[in-house]
């Protein structure tokens, strides 16, 4: 892991996304530094997925900028620093876990792709199932392979799109524990979800996205100060419900 650089790792300024008259994002800014976990919550249609795709450099903003360590997100140099974990595995189910990860390693220019793939899988406790087609693995195991895949090239920023969807209790907890470890090691996280409960403990910052703008945004715990975990979550959820009704 490269040591944290001065200033935020990810800097998004006044992001807008529209096509013709339809406006999906209407001026969203975000700054993420290493070791932070930013929770982005919002009702369906708020623009969460669009925001994530803009941060990942997968889509072009109609206005505003996204930079990773000062480099525009769409450039290859910036893409190297990003990992994406989605509710879909991004894996080829006919190939084995090793083949999938070796392929990703090759795309990212990781040295010795096969060895790196095996090492990553072993670290996740998946060494025995490494040479089986992915379609034979359980959803929880597939999720773990996807996590290895997202972290294989040692990104500094991990973007997560509804990562707990379809996971059972145990797998969700495992995932959370893993992400907490990553965050402690300096990884920056942006986690998009429609359910604020699951990742509340993990988050350092919480943002509510409603109809393309922040309804509330800032460090977790709100204005009440630090440590008031339960109350702040209720507060956040209250505003979420208000936003959904309004």
């Amino acid at each position, binding site marked *: 892991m490269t040591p944290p650089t001065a200033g935020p790792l990810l800097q998004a300024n006044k992001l807008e996304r529209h096509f013709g008259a339809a406006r999906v994002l209407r001026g969203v800014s975000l700054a993420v530094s290493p070791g932070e976990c930013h929770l982005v919550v919002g009702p369906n249609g708020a623009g969460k997925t669009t925001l994530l*795709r803009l941060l*990942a*450099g*997968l*889509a*072009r903003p109609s206005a505003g900028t996204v930079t990773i360590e000062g480099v525009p997100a*769409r450039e*290859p*140099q910036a*893409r*190297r620093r*990003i990992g*994406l974990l*989605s509710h*879909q*595995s*991004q*894996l*080829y*189910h*006919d*190939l084995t876990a090793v*083949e999938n990860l070796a*392929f*990703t390693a*090759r*795309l*990212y*220019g990781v040295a010795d792709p096969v060895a790196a793939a095996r090492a990553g899988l072993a670290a996740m406790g998946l060494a025995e199932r490494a040479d089986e*087609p992915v379609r034979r693995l359980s959803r929880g195991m597939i999720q773990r392979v996807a996590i290895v*895949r997202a972290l294989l090239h040692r990104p500094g920023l991990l973007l997560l799109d509804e990562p707990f969807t379809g996971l059972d209790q145990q797998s969700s907890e495992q995932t959370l524990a893993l992400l907490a470890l990553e965050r402690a090691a300096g990884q920056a996280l942006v986690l998009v979800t429609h359910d604020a409960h699951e990742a509340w403990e993990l988050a350092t910052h919480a943002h509510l996205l409603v109809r393309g703008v922040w309804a509330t945004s800032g460090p977790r715990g709100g204005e009440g100060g630090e440590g008031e975990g339960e109350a702040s979550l209720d507060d956040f959820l209250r505003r979420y419900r208000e936003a959904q009704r309004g």
Partner: protein
Amino acid sequence: MGDFLRAALAVAAKDIRVEHRSKTALIAAIAFAALVLVIFNFARDAAAVSREMLAPSVLWITFSFSGVIALNRSFALERENAALDGLLLAPVSRSALFLGKYLANLAFVFTVEAVALPLFVLFFDVDLSGALGGIVLTAVLATTGFVAVGTVFAAMTVRTRFAELMLPLLVLPFLLPPVIGAVQVTARLLAGRPVSEIAGWLRILGFYDLVFVTLCLLLFPPLMDE
């Protein structure tokens, strides 16, 4: 340049490995080609139309239709688990992604043609002596062009609900110049005509390839970038 080719080859190798694992699409395409050849044999009035007259058209209809069928799977496999996002997120040029997909598709279609050609010779009792080299060259030239365009359209139609219908509809007009040229050349080769007569058509096929492969390489990045 090295990175570009390395990425393209990695994508192509991955595609070929995936296809090799299940082989369903390949077998389906070959079976389709064989079926078309069989139907053609029975669908003509043997007294009125000789096999020689029909042969070039039959060969090229078989090649082009099986080719189009083969192209559908190329992006369907990326759709299944949002693997395409993984490809787009990687620090790899989109043109390299296209090249990889294109090479894999070429390998696939060439394989189908390599099986269909001997079947064609068998079913239609065609004398290929002296013409084999020319026909293979024509097949390579014509296929190179329409697979490039087909790969781009496959990337688009996979996002629609009726991909299997949309792809042939879009590709059909683009098949015309290569197929017209290929049939003309094939007919002349089978009739033993001198090379000078077909050189012009081969040049057109080559030019078509050059223009469309380049255009597809250039258009793929703006196509993929939201």
